């Protein structure tokens, strides 16, 4: 309503021949109120990609036979206690699981999504630009968005996003549902507040990827906390593991390597000169 008032005032002044300053106010009233901290609304220790289904094979990921075999192998390794650790960021689309708080900042030309988990940072450009022919790959990809007023009330309510240009390796979730190594993923999102509950944010996410036999759409939701305290998530600080080849070792507080499973062989020291 205030926006229309400004427009009316400008029109009035213009009609009277009064020069008006060009619009300079960033009118937050045009956009939904996305301020605060948001965290995944689904509960449970596991964080499967599709929150409406059980984790692991219960996700019924529409994988191609080749990538289903890769996933089965990953599940078998986990069952054997082998968990290859990594402090690489999840990237898109997995970062939108939001296991730790997220903040959205809406500016007219860009919406920023700041993710605590792995300190990921997304820029969604809403300045009308097109995708370049060559995009520098990034785990979070390159995102272009458009605001829509789907209920025609004069205010934007939905951010429609497309993301390309990702790098890998990436998985959909912690169970290791793989995305294709060609990294030609396209992720489409529709982000909007719940009509009945303004502290609930929805994200309909469609992933198109060559590891999939068809596009895979999930709806994730996030709950707002306006007074959350922001913390840092530092994978390297808490990660006391190192991967050498196919083996994962532990680094103790005393700085020595130790095994992570019974009868694990020690690391191969082939590059060290043996003492005489």
């Amino acid at each position, binding site marked *: 309503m205030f926006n229309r*008032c400004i427009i009316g005032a400008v029109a009035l002044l213009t009609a009277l021949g009064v020069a008006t300053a060009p619009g*300079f106010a960033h*009118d937050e009233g045009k956009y939904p109120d996305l301020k605060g901290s948001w965290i995944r609304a689904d509960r449970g220790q596991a964080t499967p990609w599709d929150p409406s289904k059980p984790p692991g094979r219960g996700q019924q990921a529409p994988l191609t036979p080749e990538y289903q075999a890769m996933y089965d192998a990953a599940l078998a390794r986990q069952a054997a206690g082998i968990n290859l650790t990594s402090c690489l960021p999840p990237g898109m689309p997995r970062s939108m699981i939001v296991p730790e708080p997220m903040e959205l900042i809406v500016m007219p030309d860009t919406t920023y999504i700041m993710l605590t988990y792995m300190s990921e940072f997304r820029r969604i450009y809403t300045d009308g630009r097109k995708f370049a022919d060559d995009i520098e790959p990034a785990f979070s990809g390159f995102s272009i968005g458009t605001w829509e007023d789907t209920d025609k009330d004069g205010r934007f309510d939905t951010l429609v996003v497309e993301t390309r240009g990702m790098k890998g390796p990436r998985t959909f979730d912690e169970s290791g549902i793989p995305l294709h190594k060609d990294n030609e993923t396209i992720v489409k999102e529709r982000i909007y507040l719940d009509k009945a509950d303004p502290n609930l944010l929805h994200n309909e996410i469609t992933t198109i990827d060559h590891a999939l036999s068809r596009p895979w759409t999930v709806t994730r939701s996030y709950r707002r906390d306006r007074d959350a305290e922001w913390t840092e998530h530092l994978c390297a600080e808490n990660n006391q593991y190192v991967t050498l080849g196919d083996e994962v070792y532990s680094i103790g507080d005393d700085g020595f*390597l130790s095994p992570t499973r019974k009868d694990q062989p020690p690391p191969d020291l082939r590059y060290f000169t043996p003492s005489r």
Partner: protein
Amino acid sequence: MRAFSSIGALTVAAMLCVTATSAGAHDEKKYPDMRAQWTRIGSAAFDPNKPGGRGQQPPLTPEYQALLDHILAARAAGSLEGNMTVTCIPSGMPRAMIVYETMDVIVLPETTYIRMSYMNELRRIYTDGRAWPAKITPTFAGYSIGKWLDEDGDGRFDTLAIETRGFKGPRTFDGTPGIPLHSDNQTVVEERIYLDKNDADVLHADIKVTDHALTRPWSVMRKYQREHSPHWSEYICNEGNQQLLLGKENYMVSADGFLMPVRKGQAPPDLKYFNQPK
């Protein structure tokens, strides 16, 4: 006549708008235009106006000078001991303001965000008038409260005055040689950030550090250049980082996944916790 008519119309329009519901217009003209990508001007030494290493002349206490001497000796021997960014621990404050890569500044009325692409560090500087919380969860970036100042009295803010507390560590002032801050993490960092009066493409950060590793507060002045054609890259420390710190020794992990020495004659790590062949 036209001026009087204009004033009258403006007044009517303003009255109409004030009575209408406002969802909060953010008047960006009240604030300096800092929203940009910035890159550092000058060296990556904490004080860019002095040579690196001992040339920085940090005002360290005897205890922390001795620690720095030890680190310098370790560096000369090829060790990276004390440089925590080697293991992808972030720089933290105040070191993050060296801006090794790019810096992103976003100004909103209640918070100014400063994000470093190096180590993906994010600072939130709260300008909503809040008091210091009774308890701060320590972070490498610290907890920052800021206040906008209109130093030249022209009706627009020009300087962001910031105080940052609530740190965790270990932190150093720089990467090389790794001038240490005190292990008690009771650092207080005060900053004044403002655009250059003669060149709006230059941003200044006057930084003063109070820390128990120092005999007195240490003040430096850093500058940054606005990039008009920003290129945003993702910095992922763990991607391609083959460094490994085991205790005070650093090693490398080869491309084929084996441990490697970093200097001639370096002994392999002690594998005492493994069942060695008899």
